[in-house]
């Protein structure tokens, strides 16, 4: 399925949705880590 999304010209929209979502996902995880470090520093 992932190969179809990457290679198929008919799935351009789905490809961007998939990649875009993963980018958002990694930004959120990075923010979560940053806020956690902040919280732990405040606790100290």
């Amino acid at each position, binding site marked *: *399925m*992932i190969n*179809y*999304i990457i290679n198929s010209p008919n*799935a351009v*929209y*789905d490809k961007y*949705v*998939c990649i875009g*979502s*993963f980018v958002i*996902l990694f930004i*959120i*995880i990075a*923010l*979560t880590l940053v*806020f*956690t*470090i902040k*919280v*732990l520093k405040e*606790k100290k």
Partner: protein
Amino acid sequence: MKKFIDVFKQKNMATGYLYFYVHFITEVVCFVCLKRIVGNLVILWLSPLLYDMFAFVPQAMFGYIKDKYPKFNPGVIGTFIMILAVINFMTNILPLRYLSVVILALGNGLMHVDAAVATLRSSEGKLSQPAIFVAGGSFGVITGKILGDTLMPMWVLIILALTMIPFCLLGQSYVENINTLKKFNYANDKVNPMVLILLTTLVVIVRGYAGYGIPTTWNQTLLQTVMLFSFMGIGKALGGIFIDAFGMKKTALLSVLVSIPFLVFGDTIMIVSLIGTMLFSMTMAVTLGLLVSVLKDNPGLAFGYTTIGLFLGTIPIFFITIKSVLINSLIVSTLSIICYIVLKVIIRKEDKND
């Protein structure tokens, strides 16, 4: 047995029951919608991935906001966001293909955060209440999947969603002073807090992955699937109840190590597999208890780590399929042993009077 019964006499157990209903309805609404998504293979593949992504991952951020601004009410907001998604599923007013799925998932995430924070804040360091709330999801998922195949009209979901609001508001009334969170004390103080958070999340990732790798050849009929989800739900609730009754270390041992033979040898024997699934599901309360013990003033953020871990654990199943029962069994066993070693290090040594 007395210890087990005493758990149900704990203060504020009602929050667990109230949010059990909220979680149940949330999953019913979401899974009826997901079950009715039609289209080509890409849509059927990408929709669940996007749903998991936007339901699970942002919960840490929603939780952090809730921790910082206690007046923020994710339960009521989440209900209306889910209703908006259901209306869009019915009418397609917003034309973008995956928008309804993303809106629905965000609403789902907000509901989870509301329930997690309320149950953790009101439980006075106990884990039965949050575990009972989490258990409602398994029953909701299977009910939603069944109802999705019926002729039930979509507007019924809006009514169901609206019934959650009084439950959320009542649940909020149990939330007490933030200081009760200090009573969560399950984590080993000698381990660096950030390392402990990452190791616990790793356990959640591994368990999330293993959950999909459990060999269940026996599962062929609808009734058997209902049984599987029901035992998952019972296991999640029992995890919290067992920790409150018998302690964190014993529950971790039971859920991570004792479950292995049941899971591996239960491939074709339903009852053995169901016992394994029930024991396996108890890990949820163990990891949540550890994370809240480190992030004491931020229960929302702590809960978010469990959902991020679950999502990361389920990513491989969207891309790789392992069909061999033997390989699956080996992976589940090896990962479970690693999890147990990690948990043994990060769980606080219990005092005799605990």
